[in-house]
Protein backbone atom coordinates (compact mmCIF):
# COMPACT_ATOMS: atom_id res chain seq x y z
CA UNK A 1 0.00 0.00 0.00
CA UNK A 2 2.79 2.37 0.96
CA UNK A 3 4.51 1.57 -2.30
CA UNK A 4 1.39 2.39 -4.30
CA UNK A 5 0.97 5.73 -2.54
CA UNK A 6 4.66 6.58 -2.79
CA UNK A 7 4.54 5.70 -6.48
CA UNK A 8 1.56 7.99 -6.93
CA UNK A 9 3.50 10.82 -5.32
CA UNK A 10 6.48 10.11 -7.59
CA UNK A 11 4.19 10.05 -10.62
CA UNK A 12 2.50 13.32 -9.67
CA UNK A 13 5.84 15.15 -9.64
CA UNK A 14 6.78 13.59 -12.98
CA UNK A 15 3.43 14.63 -14.52
CA UNK A 16 4.01 18.28 -13.73
CA UNK A 17 7.32 18.28 -15.61
CA UNK A 18 6.01 16.25 -18.54
CA UNK A 19 3.12 18.72 -18.81
CA UNK A 20 5.39 21.78 -18.76
CA UNK A 21 7.47 20.34 -21.58
CA UNK A 22 4.56 19.05 -23.64
CA UNK A 23 2.38 22.16 -23.38
CA UNK A 24 5.27 24.28 -24.64
CA UNK A 25 5.87 21.94 -27.55
CA UNK A 26 2.16 21.95 -28.41
CA UNK A 27 1.96 25.75 -28.29
CA UNK A 28 4.86 26.07 -30.70
CA UNK A 29 3.58 23.41 -33.05
CA UNK A 30 0.02 24.64 -32.89
CA UNK A 31 0.81 28.21 -33.79
CA UNK A 32 3.79 27.82 -36.08
CA UNK A 33 3.53 24.26 -37.36
CA UNK A 34 7.15 23.65 -36.40
CA UNK A 35 8.49 20.74 -34.38
CA UNK A 36 11.02 22.29 -32.10
CA UNK A 37 13.73 19.64 -31.82
CA UNK A 38 15.75 21.97 -29.61
CA UNK A 39 13.05 21.94 -26.93
CA UNK A 40 15.10 19.60 -24.78
CA UNK A 41 18.07 21.94 -25.10
CA UNK A 42 15.98 24.88 -23.89
CA UNK A 43 15.24 22.76 -20.85
CA UNK A 44 18.97 22.11 -20.52
CA UNK A 45 19.72 25.85 -20.74
CA UNK A 46 17.17 26.51 -18.00
CA UNK A 47 18.95 24.03 -15.75
CA UNK A 48 22.38 25.48 -16.56
CA UNK A 49 21.19 28.99 -15.77
CA UNK A 50 19.98 27.88 -12.35
CA UNK A 51 23.29 26.16 -11.81
CA UNK A 52 25.05 29.41 -12.72
CA UNK A 53 22.85 31.88 -10.84
CA UNK A 54 21.93 29.81 -7.83
CA UNK A 55 24.81 27.37 -7.28
CA UNK A 56 27.67 29.59 -8.51
CA UNK A 57 26.55 33.16 -7.92
CA UNK A 58 24.54 32.20 -4.82
CA UNK A 59 21.39 34.03 -5.81
CA UNK A 60 18.26 32.91 -3.97
CA UNK A 61 16.80 29.85 -5.65
CA UNK A 62 13.48 31.39 -6.67
CA UNK A 63 15.20 34.47 -8.11
CA UNK A 64 17.50 32.19 -10.10
CA UNK A 65 14.51 30.22 -11.40
CA UNK A 66 12.74 33.42 -12.43
CA UNK A 67 15.87 34.69 -14.18
CA UNK A 68 16.26 31.36 -15.99
CA UNK A 69 12.62 31.50 -17.06
CA UNK A 70 13.01 35.02 -18.43
CA UNK A 71 16.29 34.35 -20.22
CA UNK A 72 15.02 31.19 -21.89
CA UNK A 73 11.88 33.09 -22.90
CA UNK A 74 14.10 35.66 -24.58
CA UNK A 75 16.04 32.88 -26.31
CA UNK A 76 12.68 31.59 -27.55
CA UNK A 77 11.75 35.01 -28.91
CA UNK A 78 15.08 35.25 -30.70
CA UNK A 79 14.60 31.76 -32.14
CA UNK A 80 11.23 32.74 -33.54
CA UNK A 81 12.56 35.93 -35.05
CA UNK A 82 15.77 34.54 -36.57
CA UNK A 83 15.27 30.82 -37.15
CA UNK A 84 11.57 30.13 -37.50
CA UNK A 85 9.92 33.19 -39.01
CA UNK A 86 11.96 33.09 -42.25
CA UNK A 87 10.96 29.42 -42.56
CA UNK A 88 7.27 29.97 -42.07
CA UNK A 89 6.27 28.32 -45.33
CA UNK A 90 8.67 25.47 -44.82
CA UNK A 91 8.09 23.61 -41.54
CA UNK A 92 10.87 21.14 -42.38
CA UNK A 93 13.20 24.13 -42.55
CA UNK A 94 12.13 25.13 -39.05
CA UNK A 95 12.77 21.60 -37.83
CA UNK A 96 16.24 21.54 -39.39
CA UNK A 97 17.09 24.94 -37.95
CA UNK A 98 16.09 23.74 -34.52
CA UNK A 99 18.40 20.74 -34.94
CA UNK A 100 21.21 23.12 -35.85
CA UNK A 101 20.49 25.15 -32.75
CA UNK A 102 20.47 21.96 -30.67
CA UNK A 103 24.09 21.28 -31.63
CA UNK A 104 25.09 24.86 -30.94
CA UNK A 105 23.50 24.94 -27.49
CA UNK A 106 25.07 21.61 -26.52
CA UNK A 107 28.54 22.80 -27.48
CA UNK A 108 28.05 26.06 -25.61
CA UNK A 109 27.03 24.09 -22.52
CA UNK A 110 30.19 21.99 -22.84
CA UNK A 111 32.28 25.15 -23.17
CA UNK A 112 30.66 26.85 -20.21
CA UNK A 113 30.51 23.93 -17.81
CA UNK A 114 32.86 21.30 -19.24
CA UNK A 115 32.07 17.62 -19.44
CA UNK A 116 32.59 15.06 -16.75
CA UNK A 117 30.40 14.93 -13.71
CA UNK A 118 27.08 16.69 -13.57
CA UNK A 119 26.94 20.30 -12.46
CA UNK A 120 26.34 20.47 -8.76
CA UNK A 121 23.09 22.18 -7.79
CA UNK A 122 22.41 21.60 -4.09
CA UNK A 123 18.74 21.52 -3.09
CA UNK A 124 17.40 24.84 -1.86
CA UNK A 125 14.76 23.15 0.24
CA UNK A 126 16.07 20.30 2.29
CA UNK A 127 14.30 17.53 4.07
CA UNK A 128 11.05 15.96 3.10
CA UNK A 129 7.41 16.04 3.98
CA UNK A 130 6.09 12.77 5.33
CA UNK A 131 2.55 12.53 4.03
CA UNK A 132 1.88 9.17 5.66
CA UNK A 133 4.23 6.76 7.37
CA UNK A 134 6.49 5.50 4.59
CA UNK A 135 5.20 7.98 2.01
CA UNK A 136 7.40 11.03 1.58
CA UNK A 137 7.91 13.82 -0.90
CA UNK A 138 11.14 15.81 -0.90
CA UNK A 139 10.58 19.49 -0.15
CA UNK A 140 12.50 20.46 -3.28
CA UNK A 141 10.14 18.31 -5.34
CA UNK A 142 7.13 19.74 -3.56
CA UNK A 143 8.20 23.30 -4.38
CA UNK A 144 8.87 22.33 -7.98
CA UNK A 145 5.47 20.65 -8.21
CA UNK A 146 3.66 23.69 -6.80
CA UNK A 147 5.42 26.17 -9.08
CA UNK A 148 4.96 24.00 -12.16
CA UNK A 149 1.27 23.53 -11.42
CA UNK A 150 0.83 27.24 -10.77
CA UNK A 151 2.49 28.11 -14.06
CA UNK A 152 0.24 25.67 -15.91
CA UNK A 153 -2.84 27.23 -14.31
CA UNK A 154 -1.61 30.70 -15.32
CA UNK A 155 -1.09 29.58 -18.89
CA UNK A 156 -4.53 27.99 -18.96
CA UNK A 157 -6.09 31.19 -17.61
CA UNK A 158 -4.18 33.28 -20.11
CA UNK A 159 -5.19 31.15 -23.06
CA UNK A 160 -8.88 30.83 -22.20
CA UNK A 161 -9.71 34.06 -20.42
CA UNK A 162 -7.72 36.81 -22.12
CA UNK A 163 -8.10 38.38 -25.52
CA UNK A 164 -4.52 37.67 -26.55
CA UNK A 165 -4.87 34.06 -25.45
CA UNK A 166 -8.02 33.79 -27.53
CA UNK A 167 -6.17 35.20 -30.52
CA UNK A 168 -3.38 32.71 -30.00
CA UNK A 169 -5.79 29.82 -30.04
CA UNK A 170 -7.43 31.23 -33.12
CA UNK A 171 -4.11 31.22 -34.94
CA UNK A 172 -3.46 27.66 -33.82
CA UNK A 173 -6.82 26.63 -35.24
CA UNK A 174 -6.58 28.33 -38.59
CA UNK A 175 -3.78 30.70 -39.34
CA UNK A 176 -5.19 32.14 -42.54
CA UNK A 177 -8.62 32.80 -41.09
CA UNK A 178 -7.02 34.40 -38.04
CA UNK A 179 -4.91 36.66 -40.25
CA UNK A 180 -8.04 37.70 -42.11
CA UNK A 181 -9.56 38.66 -38.77
CA UNK A 182 -6.73 41.13 -38.36
CA UNK A 183 -4.70 39.12 -35.87
CA UNK A 184 -0.99 39.89 -36.10
CA UNK A 185 0.52 36.49 -36.86
CA UNK A 186 4.10 37.60 -36.23
CA UNK A 187 3.31 38.84 -32.78
CA UNK A 188 1.30 35.73 -31.87
CA UNK A 189 4.08 33.47 -33.14
CA UNK A 190 6.61 35.26 -30.98
CA UNK A 191 4.29 34.97 -28.02
CA UNK A 192 3.79 31.26 -28.53
CA UNK A 193 7.50 30.65 -29.00
CA UNK A 194 8.41 32.78 -25.99
CA UNK A 195 5.89 31.02 -23.77
CA UNK A 196 6.78 27.56 -25.03
CA UNK A 197 10.50 28.16 -24.57
CA UNK A 198 9.91 29.77 -21.17
CA UNK A 199 8.03 26.73 -19.96
CA UNK A 200 10.81 24.42 -21.08
CA UNK A 201 13.32 26.70 -19.37
CA UNK A 202 11.19 26.71 -16.24
CA UNK A 203 10.98 22.92 -16.22
CA UNK A 204 14.77 22.70 -16.51
CA UNK A 205 15.27 25.37 -13.87
CA UNK A 206 12.99 23.67 -11.36
CA UNK A 207 14.42 20.22 -11.93
CA UNK A 208 18.08 21.34 -11.83
CA UNK A 209 18.62 20.33 -8.18
CA UNK A 210 16.93 16.97 -8.78
CA UNK A 211 18.50 15.64 -11.94
CA UNK A 212 21.75 15.36 -13.88
CA UNK A 213 22.64 18.81 -15.14
CA UNK A 214 24.85 18.03 -18.14
CA UNK A 215 25.01 19.13 -21.78
CA UNK A 216 23.03 16.18 -23.14
CA UNK A 217 20.24 16.15 -20.56
CA UNK A 218 17.66 17.34 -23.10
CA UNK A 219 17.96 14.15 -25.09
CA UNK A 220 15.82 11.84 -22.96
CA UNK A 221 13.32 14.56 -22.17
CA UNK A 222 12.44 15.33 -25.77
CA UNK A 223 11.46 11.72 -26.41
CA UNK A 224 9.10 11.79 -23.44
CA UNK A 225 7.70 15.14 -24.59
CA UNK A 226 7.02 13.72 -28.06
CA UNK A 227 5.18 10.73 -26.66
CA UNK A 228 3.05 12.94 -24.43
CA UNK A 229 2.33 15.40 -27.22
CA UNK A 230 1.25 12.73 -29.66
CA UNK A 231 -0.85 10.80 -27.19
CA UNK A 232 -2.52 14.02 -26.10
CA UNK A 233 -3.20 15.17 -29.61
CA UNK A 234 -0.70 17.42 -31.26
CA UNK A 235 -2.86 20.51 -31.31
CA UNK A 236 -4.54 20.12 -27.97
CA UNK A 237 -3.34 21.82 -24.79
CA UNK A 238 -5.72 20.08 -22.42
CA UNK A 239 -4.87 16.84 -24.20
CA UNK A 240 -1.19 17.45 -23.52
CA UNK A 241 -1.82 17.97 -19.82
CA UNK A 242 -4.06 14.91 -19.55
CA UNK A 243 -1.59 12.78 -21.51
CA UNK A 244 1.26 14.03 -19.33
CA UNK A 245 -0.53 12.86 -16.20
CA UNK A 246 -1.54 9.52 -17.72
CA UNK A 247 1.88 8.85 -19.17
CA UNK A 248 3.65 9.84 -15.95
CA UNK A 249 1.53 7.44 -13.93
CA UNK A 250 1.91 4.70 -16.51
CA UNK A 251 5.68 5.10 -16.78
CA UNK A 252 6.25 5.41 -13.05
CA UNK A 253 4.16 2.37 -12.19
CA UNK A 254 5.72 0.18 -14.89
CA UNK A 255 9.19 1.33 -13.77
CA UNK A 256 8.45 0.59 -10.12
CA UNK A 257 6.85 -2.78 -10.67
CA UNK A 258 8.71 -3.97 -13.73
CA UNK A 259 11.49 -2.14 -15.55
CA UNK A 260 12.28 1.32 -16.90
CA UNK A 261 13.39 0.19 -20.37
CA UNK A 262 10.17 -1.77 -20.76
CA UNK A 263 8.23 1.31 -19.63
CA UNK A 264 9.76 3.47 -22.36
CA UNK A 265 9.33 0.74 -24.96
CA UNK A 266 5.66 0.31 -24.06
CA UNK A 267 5.23 4.09 -24.06
CA UNK A 268 6.54 4.26 -27.61
CA UNK A 269 4.25 1.44 -28.66
CA UNK A 270 1.24 3.13 -27.08
CA UNK A 271 2.13 6.27 -28.98
CA UNK A 272 2.31 4.26 -32.18
CA UNK A 273 -1.08 2.72 -31.49
CA UNK A 274 -2.59 6.12 -30.77
CA UNK A 275 -1.11 7.42 -34.01
CA UNK A 276 -2.70 4.58 -35.94
CA UNK A 277 -6.08 4.45 -34.24
CA UNK A 278 -6.64 8.12 -33.57
CA UNK A 279 -3.91 10.28 -35.11
CA UNK A 280 -5.47 13.35 -33.56
CA UNK A 281 -4.71 12.07 -30.07
CA UNK A 282 -7.00 11.39 -27.14
CA UNK A 283 -8.25 14.96 -26.92
CA UNK A 284 -7.58 16.18 -30.43
CA UNK A 285 -10.47 17.25 -32.59
CA UNK A 286 -8.68 18.67 -35.59
CA UNK A 287 -8.39 16.30 -38.47
CA UNK A 288 -4.99 16.35 -40.13
CA UNK A 289 -6.41 18.12 -43.13
Amino acid at each position, binding site marked *: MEIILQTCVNALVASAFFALMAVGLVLI*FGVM*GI*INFAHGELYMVGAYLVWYFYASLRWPFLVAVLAAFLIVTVIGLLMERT*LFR*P*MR*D*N*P*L*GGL*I*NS*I*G*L*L*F*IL*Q*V*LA*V*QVGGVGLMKNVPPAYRGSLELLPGVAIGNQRLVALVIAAALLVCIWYFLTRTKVGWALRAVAQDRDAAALQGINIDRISMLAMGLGAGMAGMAGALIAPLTRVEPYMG*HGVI*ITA*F*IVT*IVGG*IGSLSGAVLAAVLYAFFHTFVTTYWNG*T*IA*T*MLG*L*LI*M*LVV*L*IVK*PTGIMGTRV*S*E
Partner: protein
Amino acid sequence: MKAAKLAIPSLVALAVFMVALPFGLKLHQQDFMISLLVWVLVVSSYRLMALTGEYSLVHVVLMGAGAYGSALLAKLAGFSVWLAMPCGALVAAGIAALLSFPLFRMSGFYFLIGSFAAGEAIRLSWTYFTVPFGGPKGIKLIPSPELTLPGLGPIPFFEPIPYYYLTLIIVGISLFILYRLENSRIGLIMNAIHWRAPLAESVGVDTWRYRALAFVIASFFAGLAGALFCHYYGTANPAQFDVAAMVYVLIWVIVGGVSRFAGPIVGVVVLSVLNELFREAEQWRPLIYGCILIAAMFYLPDGLVGLPGRIRAWLDGRRGVAAAETGEAAEEPADLASPRRR
Protein backbone atom coordinates in the same frame (compact mmCIF):
# COMPACT_ATOMS: atom_id res chain seq x y z
CA MET B 1 18.81 16.41 -71.74
CA LYS B 2 21.85 18.56 -72.31
CA ALA B 3 23.44 16.93 -69.27
CA ALA B 4 23.34 13.49 -70.89
CA LYS B 5 26.17 14.26 -73.27
CA LEU B 6 28.42 15.23 -70.40
CA ALA B 7 27.27 12.44 -68.16
CA ILE B 8 29.11 9.46 -69.66
CA PRO B 9 32.62 10.91 -69.75
CA SER B 10 32.25 12.42 -66.30
CA LEU B 11 30.95 9.14 -64.89
CA VAL B 12 33.92 7.30 -66.38
CA ALA B 13 36.25 9.90 -64.90
CA LEU B 14 34.56 9.49 -61.53
CA ALA B 15 34.88 5.70 -61.73
CA VAL B 16 38.59 5.93 -62.56
CA PHE B 17 39.06 8.36 -59.72
CA MET B 18 37.25 6.10 -57.25
CA VAL B 19 39.27 3.06 -58.33
CA ALA B 20 42.59 4.89 -58.02
CA LEU B 21 41.67 6.76 -54.84
CA PRO B 22 42.72 4.34 -52.08
CA PHE B 23 46.32 4.34 -53.27
CA GLY B 24 46.59 8.04 -52.62
CA LEU B 25 45.24 7.75 -49.10
CA LYS B 26 46.66 7.09 -45.69
CA LEU B 27 45.61 3.98 -43.81
CA HIS B 28 42.95 5.59 -41.66
CA GLN B 29 41.59 7.54 -44.61
CA GLN B 30 40.94 4.27 -46.44
CA ASP B 31 38.67 3.26 -43.57
CA PHE B 32 37.04 6.65 -43.73
CA MET B 33 36.30 6.06 -47.42
CA ILE B 34 34.64 2.72 -46.65
CA SER B 35 32.39 4.38 -44.09
CA LEU B 36 31.69 7.22 -46.48
CA LEU B 37 30.63 4.85 -49.27
CA VAL B 38 28.30 3.07 -46.86
CA TRP B 39 26.73 6.37 -45.82
CA VAL B 40 26.39 7.36 -49.48
CA LEU B 41 24.19 4.32 -49.95
CA VAL B 42 22.21 5.20 -46.82
CA VAL B 43 21.46 8.77 -47.92
CA SER B 44 20.72 7.80 -51.53
CA SER B 45 18.22 5.18 -50.43
CA TYR B 46 16.74 7.73 -48.04
CA ARG B 47 16.13 9.97 -51.00
CA LEU B 48 13.95 7.36 -52.71
CA MET B 49 11.72 7.51 -49.66
CA ALA B 50 11.80 11.30 -49.66
CA LEU B 51 10.70 11.32 -53.31
CA THR B 52 7.22 10.35 -52.17
CA GLY B 53 7.28 13.32 -49.83
CA GLU B 54 7.65 11.40 -46.58
CA TYR B 55 10.54 12.01 -44.21
CA SER B 56 11.12 9.01 -41.98
CA LEU B 57 13.18 8.78 -38.81
CA VAL B 58 13.46 5.00 -38.86
CA HIS B 59 15.94 4.71 -41.71
CA VAL B 60 19.11 4.33 -39.62
CA VAL B 61 17.41 1.82 -37.34
CA LEU B 62 16.56 -0.24 -40.43
CA MET B 63 20.19 0.05 -41.47
CA GLY B 64 20.91 -1.43 -38.04
CA ALA B 65 18.32 -4.15 -38.67
CA GLY B 66 20.29 -5.09 -41.78
CA ALA B 67 23.51 -5.16 -39.75
CA TYR B 68 22.03 -7.22 -36.92
CA GLY B 69 20.23 -9.53 -39.34
CA SER B 70 23.30 -10.21 -41.42
CA ALA B 71 25.58 -10.55 -38.38
CA LEU B 72 23.28 -13.01 -36.60
CA LEU B 73 22.72 -15.09 -39.72
CA ALA B 74 26.45 -15.31 -40.30
CA LYS B 75 27.35 -15.99 -36.67
CA LEU B 76 24.50 -18.12 -35.35
CA ALA B 77 22.96 -19.71 -38.43
CA GLY B 78 26.31 -20.25 -40.10
CA PHE B 79 25.34 -18.49 -43.33
CA SER B 80 28.14 -17.54 -45.68
CA VAL B 81 28.67 -13.77 -45.46
CA TRP B 82 27.84 -13.48 -49.15
CA LEU B 83 24.40 -14.90 -48.43
CA ALA B 84 24.00 -13.22 -45.04
CA MET B 85 24.41 -9.69 -46.40
CA PRO B 86 21.49 -9.77 -48.87
CA CYS B 87 19.45 -11.67 -46.29
CA GLY B 88 20.18 -8.93 -43.75
CA ALA B 89 18.97 -6.42 -46.31
CA LEU B 90 15.84 -8.52 -46.77
CA VAL B 91 15.31 -8.50 -43.00
CA ALA B 92 15.34 -4.70 -43.07
CA ALA B 93 12.97 -4.69 -46.05
CA GLY B 94 10.69 -7.16 -44.27
CA ILE B 95 10.52 -5.03 -41.14
CA ALA B 96 9.78 -2.03 -43.32
CA ALA B 97 7.00 -3.95 -45.03
CA LEU B 98 5.44 -4.76 -41.66
CA LEU B 99 5.85 -1.19 -40.47
CA SER B 100 4.28 0.21 -43.59
CA PHE B 101 0.84 -1.01 -42.48
CA PRO B 102 0.65 1.21 -39.40
CA LEU B 103 2.96 3.98 -40.59
CA PHE B 104 1.32 4.78 -43.90
CA ARG B 105 -1.96 5.40 -42.25
CA MET B 106 -0.24 8.67 -41.38
CA SER B 107 1.55 11.28 -43.38
CA GLY B 108 3.66 14.36 -42.89
CA PHE B 109 4.40 15.23 -39.31
CA TYR B 110 2.56 12.20 -37.93
CA PHE B 111 4.55 9.89 -40.14
CA LEU B 112 7.78 11.54 -38.98
CA ILE B 113 6.98 11.00 -35.31
CA GLY B 114 5.43 7.59 -35.88
CA SER B 115 8.52 6.33 -37.65
CA PHE B 116 10.65 7.75 -34.86
CA ALA B 117 8.62 5.84 -32.24
CA ALA B 118 8.83 2.61 -34.20
CA GLY B 119 12.59 3.01 -34.60
CA GLU B 120 13.22 3.71 -30.93
CA ALA B 121 11.09 0.73 -29.90
CA ILE B 122 13.11 -1.56 -32.19
CA ARG B 123 16.39 -0.14 -30.94
CA LEU B 124 15.39 -0.49 -27.27
CA SER B 125 14.54 -4.13 -27.90
CA TRP B 126 18.14 -4.70 -29.06
CA THR B 127 19.30 -3.19 -25.79
CA TYR B 128 16.87 -5.13 -23.64
CA PHE B 129 16.99 -8.62 -25.16
CA THR B 130 20.53 -9.77 -24.50
CA VAL B 131 19.78 -13.02 -26.31
CA PRO B 132 20.26 -12.89 -29.26
CA PHE B 133 21.09 -9.18 -29.71
CA GLY B 134 23.89 -8.96 -27.15
CA GLY B 135 22.35 -6.09 -25.14
CA PRO B 136 24.04 -2.68 -25.06
CA LYS B 137 27.39 -4.16 -26.13
CA GLY B 138 25.81 -5.58 -29.27
CA ILE B 139 27.37 -8.28 -31.41
CA LYS B 140 31.12 -8.67 -31.67
CA LEU B 141 33.50 -10.60 -33.91
CA ILE B 142 31.26 -10.58 -36.95
CA PRO B 143 33.09 -12.49 -39.70
CA SER B 144 34.29 -10.78 -42.86
CA PRO B 145 33.49 -12.27 -46.28
CA GLU B 146 35.71 -14.97 -47.74
CA LEU B 147 36.53 -15.40 -51.37
CA THR B 148 39.27 -17.37 -53.05
CA LEU B 149 40.04 -16.40 -56.60
CA PRO B 150 41.85 -18.91 -58.77
CA GLY B 151 45.43 -17.80 -59.10
CA LEU B 152 45.11 -15.04 -56.51
CA GLY B 153 44.42 -17.09 -53.42
CA PRO B 154 42.07 -15.92 -50.63
CA ILE B 155 41.27 -12.23 -50.75
CA PRO B 156 41.86 -10.54 -47.38
CA PHE B 157 38.56 -8.68 -47.04
CA PHE B 158 39.46 -7.54 -43.54
CA GLU B 159 42.06 -5.30 -45.17
CA PRO B 160 40.80 -1.84 -46.12
CA ILE B 161 41.66 -1.84 -49.82
CA PRO B 162 39.92 -5.10 -50.82
CA TYR B 163 36.91 -4.17 -48.72
CA TYR B 164 36.90 -0.72 -50.22
CA TYR B 165 36.57 -2.23 -53.70
CA LEU B 166 33.89 -4.62 -52.52
CA THR B 167 31.96 -1.71 -51.02
CA LEU B 168 32.55 0.39 -54.13
CA ILE B 169 31.12 -2.33 -56.36
CA ILE B 170 28.08 -3.04 -54.19
CA VAL B 171 27.33 0.63 -53.57
CA GLY B 172 27.89 1.41 -57.26
CA ILE B 173 25.43 -1.25 -58.39
CA SER B 174 22.93 -0.17 -55.75
CA LEU B 175 23.15 3.46 -56.84
CA PHE B 176 22.65 2.42 -60.44
CA ILE B 177 19.52 0.47 -59.49
CA LEU B 178 18.21 3.37 -57.40
CA TYR B 179 18.86 5.78 -60.25
CA ARG B 180 17.14 3.61 -62.83
CA LEU B 181 14.23 3.08 -60.49
CA GLU B 182 13.77 6.79 -60.04
CA ASN B 183 13.61 7.36 -63.77
CA SER B 184 11.31 4.45 -64.38
CA ARG B 185 7.55 4.59 -64.44
CA ILE B 186 7.45 3.71 -60.73
CA GLY B 187 9.76 6.58 -59.91
CA LEU B 188 7.65 9.02 -61.87
CA ILE B 189 4.55 7.87 -60.03
CA MET B 190 6.34 8.30 -56.70
CA ASN B 191 7.23 11.82 -57.67
CA ALA B 192 3.67 12.45 -58.74
CA ILE B 193 2.45 11.27 -55.33
CA HIS B 194 4.69 13.81 -53.70
CA TRP B 195 3.61 16.83 -55.65
CA ARG B 196 0.12 15.95 -56.77
CA ALA B 197 -1.18 13.27 -54.44
CA PRO B 198 -4.91 13.94 -54.94
CA LEU B 199 -4.43 14.12 -58.69
CA ALA B 200 -2.51 10.85 -58.70
CA GLU B 201 -5.25 9.24 -56.70
CA SER B 202 -7.91 10.58 -59.02
CA VAL B 203 -6.31 8.80 -61.97
CA GLY B 204 -6.33 5.55 -60.07
CA VAL B 205 -2.88 5.41 -58.49
CA ASP B 206 -2.87 3.50 -55.22
CA THR B 207 -0.73 6.00 -53.29
CA TRP B 208 -0.45 3.75 -50.24
CA ARG B 209 1.09 1.00 -52.35
CA TYR B 210 3.68 3.23 -53.93
CA ARG B 211 4.62 4.91 -50.68
CA ALA B 212 5.05 1.50 -49.07
CA LEU B 213 7.03 0.26 -52.08
CA ALA B 214 9.42 3.20 -51.86
CA PHE B 215 9.80 2.60 -48.11
CA VAL B 216 10.53 -1.11 -48.53
CA ILE B 217 13.04 -0.63 -51.34
CA ALA B 218 14.78 2.20 -49.49
CA SER B 219 14.97 0.03 -46.38
CA PHE B 220 16.43 -2.85 -48.36
CA PHE B 221 19.36 -0.68 -49.41
CA ALA B 222 19.71 0.81 -45.94
CA GLY B 223 19.88 -2.74 -44.59
CA LEU B 224 22.48 -3.63 -47.20
CA ALA B 225 24.53 -0.62 -46.12
CA GLY B 226 24.28 -1.77 -42.50
CA ALA B 227 25.45 -5.25 -43.46
CA LEU B 228 28.40 -3.83 -45.40
CA PHE B 229 29.30 -1.73 -42.38
CA CYS B 230 29.19 -4.48 -39.77
CA HIS B 231 31.11 -7.09 -41.75
CA TYR B 232 34.02 -4.71 -42.07
CA TYR B 233 34.14 -3.29 -38.56
CA GLY B 234 33.18 -6.63 -37.06
CA THR B 235 30.65 -5.22 -34.61
CA ALA B 236 27.11 -3.92 -34.36
CA ASN B 237 25.65 -2.22 -31.28
CA PRO B 238 22.48 -0.22 -30.58
CA ALA B 239 24.30 3.07 -30.00
CA GLN B 240 25.59 3.12 -33.59
CA PHE B 241 22.05 3.40 -34.92
CA ASP B 242 20.56 5.93 -32.52
CA VAL B 243 18.68 9.18 -33.12
CA ALA B 244 21.93 11.12 -33.36
CA ALA B 245 23.01 9.04 -36.37
CA MET B 246 19.56 9.52 -37.90
CA VAL B 247 19.81 13.27 -37.43
CA TYR B 248 23.13 13.27 -39.26
CA VAL B 249 21.58 11.41 -42.19
CA LEU B 250 18.77 13.94 -42.30
CA ILE B 251 21.29 16.76 -42.27
CA TRP B 252 23.37 15.26 -45.07
CA VAL B 253 20.30 14.72 -47.23
CA ILE B 254 18.88 18.17 -46.69
CA VAL B 255 22.10 20.17 -46.86
CA GLY B 256 23.02 18.29 -50.01
CA GLY B 257 19.62 18.94 -51.54
CA VAL B 258 16.88 16.42 -52.00
CA SER B 259 15.69 17.66 -55.38
CA ARG B 260 18.30 15.79 -57.37
CA PHE B 261 19.85 12.34 -57.26
CA ALA B 262 23.35 13.65 -56.59
CA GLY B 263 22.18 16.00 -53.82
CA PRO B 264 22.36 13.72 -50.75
CA ILE B 265 25.61 12.22 -52.02
CA VAL B 266 27.17 15.67 -52.32
CA GLY B 267 25.84 16.45 -48.85
CA VAL B 268 27.36 13.44 -47.13
CA VAL B 269 30.69 13.76 -48.94
CA VAL B 270 31.17 17.48 -48.35
CA LEU B 271 30.04 17.47 -44.72
CA SER B 272 31.98 14.33 -43.76
CA VAL B 273 35.16 15.65 -45.30
CA LEU B 274 34.64 18.99 -43.54
CA ASN B 275 34.08 17.09 -40.30
CA GLU B 276 37.45 15.36 -40.72
CA LEU B 277 39.13 18.69 -41.51
CA PHE B 278 37.73 20.13 -38.29
CA ARG B 279 39.04 17.25 -36.20
CA GLU B 280 41.49 19.56 -34.49
CA ALA B 281 38.57 21.64 -33.26
CA GLU B 282 37.45 18.62 -31.22
CA GLN B 283 34.66 19.81 -28.99
CA TRP B 284 33.66 22.67 -31.26
CA ARG B 285 32.83 20.33 -34.16
CA PRO B 286 29.11 19.88 -33.46
CA LEU B 287 28.75 23.66 -33.24
CA ILE B 288 30.36 24.12 -36.65
CA TYR B 289 27.97 21.47 -37.95
CA GLY B 290 25.01 23.30 -36.48
CA CYS B 291 26.04 26.60 -38.05
CA ILE B 292 26.55 25.00 -41.46
CA LEU B 293 23.12 23.44 -41.18
CA ILE B 294 21.35 26.70 -40.40
CA ALA B 295 23.34 28.60 -43.01
CA ALA B 296 22.39 26.00 -45.61
CA MET B 297 18.70 26.37 -44.75
CA PHE B 298 18.92 30.11 -45.29
CA TYR B 299 21.23 30.44 -48.23
CA LEU B 300 20.90 27.12 -50.02
CA PRO B 301 17.23 26.17 -49.87
CA ASP B 302 17.75 23.77 -52.77
CA GLY B 303 20.86 22.32 -51.17
CA LEU B 304 24.54 22.27 -52.05
CA VAL B 305 23.65 20.63 -55.31
CA GLY B 306 21.80 23.75 -56.36
CA LEU B 307 24.86 25.89 -55.77
CA PRO B 308 26.25 25.78 -59.35
CA GLY B 309 22.83 26.77 -60.67
CA ARG B 310 22.66 29.66 -58.25
CA ILE B 311 26.15 30.85 -59.16
CA ARG B 312 25.32 30.63 -62.83
CA ALA B 313 22.12 32.57 -62.30
CA TRP B 314 24.01 35.17 -60.35
CA LEU B 315 26.62 35.51 -63.11
CA ASP B 316 23.87 35.73 -65.71
CA GLY B 317 22.22 38.39 -63.66
CA ARG B 318 25.48 40.33 -63.58
CA ARG B 319 25.71 40.12 -67.31
CA GLY B 320 22.33 41.75 -67.51
CA VAL B 321 20.53 38.67 -68.69
CA ALA B 322 17.08 38.36 -67.25
CA ALA B 323 17.52 35.99 -64.33
CA ALA B 324 14.44 33.95 -64.97
CA GLU B 325 16.39 30.77 -65.58
CA THR B 326 17.97 29.63 -62.31
CA GLY B 327 19.68 26.59 -63.72
CA GLU B 328 18.50 23.04 -63.58
CA ALA B 329 17.66 23.23 -59.92
CA ALA B 330 14.54 25.15 -60.80
CA GLU B 331 13.10 22.28 -62.78
CA GLU B 332 11.32 21.22 -59.64
CA PRO B 333 9.82 23.46 -56.98
CA ALA B 334 12.72 24.69 -54.93
CA ASP B 335 11.38 24.41 -51.45
CA LEU B 336 11.38 21.12 -49.62
CA ALA B 337 8.50 18.86 -48.95
CA SER B 338 6.30 20.44 -46.39
CA PRO B 339 4.57 18.12 -43.97
CA ARG B 340 1.87 20.69 -43.43
CA ARG B 341 1.00 21.05 -47.00
CA ARG B 342 -1.11 17.92 -47.06
